[in-house]
């Protein structure tokens, strides 16, 4: 299995934690942009929920994770998968329904997983992966491993009962789990204030006896710092943390387009968040410190583009599963 370009493999930038964050975010952005660009070709014949605008959260979190730590994700799982080190080719093959996809073409874009790097699973039903992640934490504790589980969830997930059931159990058993809530303000076209009372989502943590932290989800360095504390607590057996990261989805809920013209959110709001682009914010931070020059950035972009071209070419040439295999693996073993 060929894994994607890792931060440590890049030669364009000096090694530094913050430049690593930048590389990983830019890579995810470029992959997602390329998917959006090519989506109309109809080679990726499944829904796509792009992570553009939200890259800082998974990259900041993954920066403090081990390969053996376990991550669960949602329908919007591309960035979580890539940030954890998920195989890019297996992802693109999956989106294109090829046999070499991470699910062999059976899951599509909402089921990305890569057991080799601790990307345990992604599930498309809102909040459904939350108890799975808590169960992973239970297994880690039972097996006396000091790995942790990270549960990515969206703001709408806390409206589901299963979030509260899972948080309650995690707290009672002091499980090594970090809940990372990406609050992007919308559930499809419905705003947060139409769905929840005017209280911080993070307040739900203490309601369950769980420490909560709020962080700027478009500041990768801040996310990394907050995640580092949460993961350290979890490894030390001090129980779960609820991390609320404010961020924003740039494109439509599902698909490659922008949809501000629908009227569910304003162009002005979108522009405000776009000015807070997590990648440009970190680029400014790095260049102010002399860690990122224009030429370094363009070299890095070229390096990623080359990887991306090769990965797309690989996936497009990869074979489809044959129909006679469709009945296989109904049961394990």
């Amino acid at each position, binding site marked *: 299995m060929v894994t994607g370009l890792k931060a440590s493999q890049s030669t364009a930038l000096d090694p530094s934690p913050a430049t690593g964050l930048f590389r990983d975010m830019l890579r995810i952005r470029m992959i997602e942009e390329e998917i959006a660009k090519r989506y109309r070709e109809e080679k990726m014949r499944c829904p796509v929920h792009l992570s553009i605008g939200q890259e800082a959260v998974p990259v900041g979190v993954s920066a403090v994770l081990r390969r053996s730590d376990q991550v669960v994700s949602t329908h919007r799982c591309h960035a979580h998968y890539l940030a954890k080190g998920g195989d890019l080719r297996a992802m693109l093959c999956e989106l294109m329904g090829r046999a070499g996809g991470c*699910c062999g073409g059976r899951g599509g874009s909402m089921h990305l997983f890569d057991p080799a790097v601790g990307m*345990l699973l992604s599930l498309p039903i809102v909040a459904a992966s939350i108890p*799975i992640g808590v169960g992973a934490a239970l297994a880690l504790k039972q097996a006396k491993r000091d790995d942790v589980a990270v549960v990515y969830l969206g703001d709408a997930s806390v409206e589901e009962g299963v979030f509260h059931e899972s948080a309650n159990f995690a707290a009672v058993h002091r499980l090594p789990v970090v809940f990372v809530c990406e609050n992007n303000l919308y559930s499809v076209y419905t705003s947060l204030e139409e769905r929840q009372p005017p209280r911080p989502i993070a307040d739900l943590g203490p309601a369950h006896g769980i420490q909560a932290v709020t962080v700027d989800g478009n500041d990768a360095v801040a996310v990394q710092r907050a995640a580092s504390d949460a993961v350290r607590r979890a490894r030390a057996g001090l129980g779960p943390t609820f991390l609320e990261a404010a961020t924003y989805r740039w494109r439509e809920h599902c698909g490659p387009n922008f949809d501000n013209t629908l009227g569910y959110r304003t162009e002005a709001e979108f522009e405000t968040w776009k000015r807070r682009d997590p990648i440009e914010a970190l680029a400014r931070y790095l260049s102010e410190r002399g860690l990122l020059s224009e030429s370094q950035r363009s070299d890095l972009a070229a390096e990623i583009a080359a990887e991306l071209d090769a990965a797309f070419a690989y996936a497009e040439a990869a074979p489809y599963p044959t129909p006679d295999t469709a009945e296989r*693996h109904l049961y394990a*073993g």
Partner: protein
Amino acid sequence: MPAERIITAAEAVRETLAQALRDRPEVFLLGEGVADPTGIFGTTKGLVDEFGSDRVIEMPVAENGLTGIAIGSALLGRRPVMTHQRVDFALLSLEQLFNAAAKSSYVTNGRHRVPLTVRMVIGRGWGQGPQHSQSLEALFAHIPGLKVVMPSTPYEFKGLLHAAIDDDNPVIFIEHRWLHYVSGPVPPERYAIALSGPRLVEQGGKATIVANSYMILEAIRAAAALAKVDCPIDVIDLRVLRPFDPTLILESVRRTGKLVVCDTGWRLFGIGSEIIATVAERAFDALKKPVVRIGLPDHPTPSSLALAETYYPGSSAIVDAVGKLCDLPVAAVDAARAEVIAARRGIPIDKPDPAFKGPF
């Protein structure tokens, strides 16, 4: 030969769970009441004392969440055994069972395993009413990727439960509450009964009765009475609903040409309907008479004994069905029916039949 040991099905379950906990460190139990003083009708009683609260986990009242937690742990190699005291509560967990557990192996192209056993107790009687006495096996059997098991005798309870816990797939293990009282020979050592295919309980040849769970007891009683009027029948215990293997049923129907199916649950859209459809597809030419479906009528379970009296079909309904299919003389049917009614000794329908205590 030492005398066979006779224990109840509830004791067989408890013994199985204790053996599994002892043999495999990755096995753990969870459920509402699993560590309480009564221990799920005695089936988990005292296990927390031997194995501790980390392995016999008294769970919060959160069926869907805890099912997901069990699945997540199973993905990392644990073997959770979850118990619902009533299947009606398990309805809260269908999202996790149907979406996550059932599809896990398939969607990952065989890379994920979910070695999860979910015990669900079904039952009837004592005015439990519409939401405490359902038999919902057809719901689970509809979902590809689940295994669905309904044991009947104590021997089957133990062997099938060991197989369920050893299985790398999600297994829905449906226990009829009234079968917990039934006793029978159960070897003390560990043994497993493969989760495949039905069991031929009686071979008679005049007609084929397919039943499962509690209805097996009614079918055995009917078969005994029918044998006395020279109408011996085949009784088949379906026992493993999924994976569905109708081979034994088809063989029997090819011999008898007559089929009666008995559901523990509702007659419409039930397990029996699937059996009949399969026979119609694959052994239609062997059928000499229209098939008969016996099951619960098309309404929820009423609480009042006055209304429940006619709700549960028993061995007399089976006798009547076979009598008609086999063109038995009226006197023979009357005699067989009188015998099964007498065997029940006037026990009201809302109480377990003491004659069914076995040993079987």
